[in-house]
């Protein structure tokens, strides 16, 4: 009897024991530094203060960094989701070689951010591949700059295109998995009632994909707020974003308080975006597949 109680208790504790190492590690390596960063951001001269945030907002590049970050997020993330949705739909109709196509489409995922930025830099620089091709075709007469402070529009387009190229695959992987979970019977039922392909997509597939789209949006948006290496490679000083401002404050100016303030701002934006997605794309329990 006594032994059974012990065994029962041990059984109940097992899951907790198993998750304990990972939880402890995350607390030590993530939660504590996070709290320290928040504390650092709100302190100046040993007292509670908003001085670091004032320094941050007073920086001559702060407004540009905010605008640039939001421009890229608002342009790149919807594009990525739309593209990935289309790609996931096309994948459904492949009978053979589906895995190989997914594999090829996710190649950019395997490349580091900085390397991806450098690849695009090689394409778009003055003597890069794009200008070489345009010159051979007779469209331009000599080297043209696309990435300078004098050409902010093409610089923004270049960064958005590069982000789309690099990170659409992660959205695709999430959505393709979601599409596989949707039972074929729903589409067949819609067919029976005479739905057009577009109606089947918007009325059946999209609502059922909602949880996957939510996950993909949260993941991509949070990562887009943190974009750094690719933007540094293509834009450098010409395209400040929140993360590059953080980096400069931390390493170039060694102003740790302001760097922490930037980090807190980026975290707040990420949490805000996540909450918006959770609210807007909520799936009522009765609709869960």
């Amino acid at each position, binding site marked *: 009897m006594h032994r059974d109680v012990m065994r029962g208790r041990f059984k109940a504790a097992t899951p907790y024991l198993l998750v304990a190492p990972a939880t402890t590690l995350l607390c030590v390596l993530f939660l504590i530094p996070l709290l320290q960063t928040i504390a650092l951001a709100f302190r100046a001269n040993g007292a509670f203060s908003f001085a670091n945030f004032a320094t941050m907002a007073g920086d*001559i590049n702060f407004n540009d960094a905010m605008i640039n970050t939001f421009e890229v997020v608002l342009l790149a993330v919807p594009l990525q989701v739309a593209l990935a949705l289309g790609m996931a739909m096309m994948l459904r109709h492949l009978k053979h070689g589906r895995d190989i196509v997914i594999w090829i489409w996710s190649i950019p995922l395997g490349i580091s951010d900085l390397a991806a930025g450098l690849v695009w830099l090689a394409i778009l620089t003055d003597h890069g591949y794009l200008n070489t091709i345009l010159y051979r075709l007779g469209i331009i007469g*000599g080297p043209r700059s696309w990435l300078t402070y004098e050409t902010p529009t093409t610089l923004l387009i270049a960064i958005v295109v590069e982000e789309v190229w690099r990170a659409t695959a992660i959205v695709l992987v999430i959505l393709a998995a979601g599409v596989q979970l949707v039972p074929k019977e729903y589409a067949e039922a819609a067919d029976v009632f005479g739905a057009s392909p577009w109606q089947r997509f918007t009325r059946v597939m999209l609502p059922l994909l909602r949880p996957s789209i939510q996950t993909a949006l949260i993941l991509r948006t949070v990562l887009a707020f943190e974009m750094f290496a690719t933007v540094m490679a293509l834009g450098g000083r010409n395209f400040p974003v929140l993360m590059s401002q953080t980096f400069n404050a931390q390493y*170039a*100016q060694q102003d740790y308080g302001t760097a922490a303030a930037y980090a807190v701002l980026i975290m707040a934006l990420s949490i805000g975006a996540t909450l918006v997605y959770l609210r807007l794309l909520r799936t009522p329990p009765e609709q869960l597949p």
Partner: protein
Amino acid sequence: MFLGAAVTLLAGAAAFPQPADADTVFLSTQLRPIEEAQKMRDVILKDYQGKVTYVPEQPAQLPIRLRAEQEGGTHTISLIGALHGELEPLVTLHALVPLDALAASLADRGIPASLMTLGRLGTPHQMYIPWMQATYFMVANKKALPYLPQGANLDALTYQQLAEWAAAIDAKTGQRVLGFPAGPQGLMHRFIEGFLYPSFTGGLVTTFRSPAAVAMWAQFAAMWKDVNPNSTRYGFMQEPLLSGDVWIAFDHVARLLDALRQKPDEFVAFPAPAGPKGRGYMPVLAGLAIAKDAPDPNGAESLIKYLTLPATQIATEKAVGFFPVVKAAPPAELDPGVKLAAAAIAATENAKDALPALLPVGLGTHGGEFDKVMIDTFQLIVLRHEKPEAALAREAPILQKVLDEAKAPCWAPDPPSAGACQVK
């Protein structure tokens, strides 16, 4: 309390390989990487008659280590090799001995007077002997030379002539081929601090928002229309020089040398231009000083004499790429690119209007914020076309705050100050 603990700790840790009795300990913040330190031991010190223990040390540790020796009472270090800015705080620590007699005996070395004056560190005595140097200068592709303004001499160029030169190339070829290292990895702030400001205003901090500075920024912003717009991406100017995107460029010697080495026949090297107040330039100068209560002051003196011999200076140049401070004829087998660089450095410091401006001194951890003020000012005026008066009025209080927090007194070419340097 914390510092005391650190000092005690370091005194304990100071038990680095103890030299044999006869060795002269040479502590250096320069030539620290293993390859360079090995070259120091095996090549540069090869012909020295005497035993030397060469000990590389982090710059930040230098004053801590000397204080530890002072307080602990055991002295091991005889000779100190470090940058000008690293030696300066040692004067206030009373860790150096004056070297006036030694300086007099080295008169035949031909060390430029401007460098010897720096070696006084603002005192009446010679506190260190110049050892080796580097600086910034300009490199031009020979394709650009036909467009030089009439009567312009490369070794005595002015900012006005540089602007005319770039404008002439732009007008005739449609290319903007003047380049500056204004990218995130570039050293544009050093150009502003050590070259532009001293040349136009004769100072840096005190004259930050003077009428001369306003005129300077207006002139520089006007010149920028002929500057390659990719400049805000450039880090090391040797790359656009080699690719042909840029024909005329300013940078640190270490960031130009590859271009000169790879294509010595295509490039010329020359001093940075002069403004109304002279040819401002930023020497990167390392010096040799003797520690107070050194266990082997005679060994240290003879080591200084050896290291400033023309032959040793050439050996140093060949081995580690630092340039001589003494008059030394470059040997025939010296790399032609290195020769070009050496000639440009010599032309810079021997220019009649040379105006040495030091690396910011005494800013400690605020150095990055100081540089940011310079780059922000550049960005506001040159890239965003703000009125110089407005931008300088915005940045001046920020600059003052940095100096106040660091409690940094003025450094050359600003006149010495009692407290923190003041923006006038």
